[in-house]
C-alpha cells in the first residue's frame, strides 16, 4: 500500500472507529433542509423555486461544519508532527486527508441531496445535474475548507474564524452549482456551468493542498 493510500485508510479507520462527525453532518444537512418548509411555509411553488439554492447553501454549511476538526485533533495529540515527518510531501498528506474527509461527508451529502430535493418538490428533471454538480462542487468545498482549517488550527474560537475566512471563497462554487441545476430545470444547457465547476475543482486540487501544507508548517513552528 502506498503511503498516500495509507493516510486515506487511516483517516477512514479513525473516523469509523470514533463514530465520527460524518453522521452528524448528514443529520445536520437533513434537518437544516427540512427546516425550510416550516420556515417559508408549505407552498409547493415557492419551495420548488428555492429548492436548488436551499440544497446548495445547506450543503455548503454542512461542509464547513465538517471540515473544522480536520487538523485539530492531529495538532493536539502531536500526530501532525509525525505526519509532517512522513516521507510523503505534506501537501500529499493533506490531499489524502481531504479525500478521506470527502468520502465521509461530501459523497454521502451528494447522494442524499436528490432525496431532499423530493421533499422540497424540485422537478425531477433537475436531479441528475444536482448530483453531478454536488459531486464536482463538494470536493472543492472540502479543499478550500482544509486551507481554512489549517490557518485556524492553533487559534482559539477557530470555528467562527474559519467561517469568516472560508465562506467568501465558497461563493464561486455556489454560483455555478446553483446555475447548473437551474439551467437544467429551465431546459437550458447546464454543461457550461458544470465545466466551470470542474475547472474550479481542477484548480483547487493542486493549489489548496500546497497552501494548506504551508499553513500547517507555520502552525508547527
Amino acid at each position, binding site marked *: *500500500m*502506498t*503511503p498516500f493510500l*495509507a*493516510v486515506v*485508510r*487511516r483517516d477512514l*479507520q*479513525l473516523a469509523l*472507529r*470514533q463514530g465520527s462527525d460524518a453522521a452528524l453532518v448528514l443529520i445536520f444537512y437533513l434537518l437544516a433542509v427540512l427546516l425550510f418548509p416550516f420556515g417559508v411555509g408549505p407552498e409547493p411553488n415557492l419551495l420548488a423555486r428555492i429548492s436548488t439554492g436551499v440544497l446548495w447553501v445547506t450543503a455548503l454549511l454542512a461542509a464547513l461544519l465538517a471540515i473544522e476538526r480536520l487538523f485539530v485533533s492531529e495538532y*493536539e*495529540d*502531536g*500526530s501532525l*508532527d*509525525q*505526519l*509532517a*515527518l*512522513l*516521507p*510523503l*510531501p505534506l501537501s500529499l498528506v493533506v490531499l489524502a486527508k481531504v479525500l478521506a474527509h470527502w468520502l465521509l461527508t461530501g459523497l454521502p451529502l451528494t447522494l442524499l441531496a436528490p432525496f431532499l430535493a423530493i421533499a422540497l418538490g424540485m422537478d425531477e428533471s433537475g436531479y441528475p445535474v444536482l448530483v453531478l454538480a454536488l459531486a464536482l462542487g463538494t470536493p472543492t468545498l472540502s479543499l478550500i475548507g482544509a486551507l481554512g482549517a489549517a490557518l485556524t488550527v492553533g487559534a482559539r474560537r477557530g470555528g467562527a474564524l474559519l467561517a469568516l475566512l472560508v465562506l467568501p471563497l465558497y461563493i464561486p462554487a455556489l454560483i455555478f452549482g446553483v446555475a447548473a441545476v437551474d439551467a437544467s430545470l429551465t431546459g437550458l444547457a447546464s454543461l457550461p456551468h458544470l465545466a466551470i465547476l470542474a475547472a474550479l475543482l481542477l484548480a483547487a486540487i493542486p493549489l489548496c493542498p500546497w497552501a494548506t501544507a504551508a499553513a500547517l508548517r507555520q502552525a*508547527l*513552528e
Partner: protein
Amino acid sequence: MTLFAGHGLACRRGERLVFAGLSFRVAAGDVLLLRGPNGSGKSSLLRCMAGLLAPVAGAQTWDERPIALDPEAHRGRLRYVGHQDAVKPALTVLENLALWQQLHGVSDSAALRRALTALGLDPLAELPARLLSAGQRRRVALARLLATPAPLWLLDEPTTALDDEGVGRFARMAGDHRAGGGLVVLSSHGDPGVHGEVLALADFAPPREAAA
C-alpha cells in the same frame, strides 16, 4: 561513516532568539545528550534537527551533504518523539503501531512484535489506547522507533512519565540502537539511562541585548 552535524545554528521563537552559534556533531553509534534549563532551546534544537523548525542561521549536514538539499531523504532517516505521544485513543496499541508502519511504507510484522516486547507492551497490545496511562502511552510512542526503523532518533525528554523499569527498557533499546550504528539525540532533565556527549544549551544562549 555516518555523521550528522550542525554549524552556527541559531533559532528564534517569536521575537526571542533562544540560541545562537550552536554547533554539534553526532557520528554513528553516538549519543548526544542535550542539557539546559527550561526555555534554553532543547526542544527547539530537536525540532530544527527534524526539519520541523527552520533555523534562522547556520546549516546542518548529513555525511557532509546539507540536509536542506533533500528534506525528504532527511525525513526518511529520522524518527522524532516529541512531548506529545501521537497515540490515537480510538485504536488499540497494536493498531497504532501498525498504522505508523503503513504510513512509513514498512511491512515487517516481526519488527512490530519486537517493538511491543522491547517496551513490555505485549499484554496491552489489544487494549484501546484511551485506556492507557501516560507512561504506557509514552512506551507506545517509543515502540514506534523500533516498529519503523531509521538511523537517527530525535527524542524530546523520552523518559518523562516512565517508571524505573520503563527507563531501563528505554536504556536497553537505545543501547542496541547505538550498537547497530544508530544515532541518538535526546534531551533530558533527569537521568535517561543512556550516556554520551553532553551539549549544554546554556553555553549558546545569546547575549541579553540580542535577545531583547
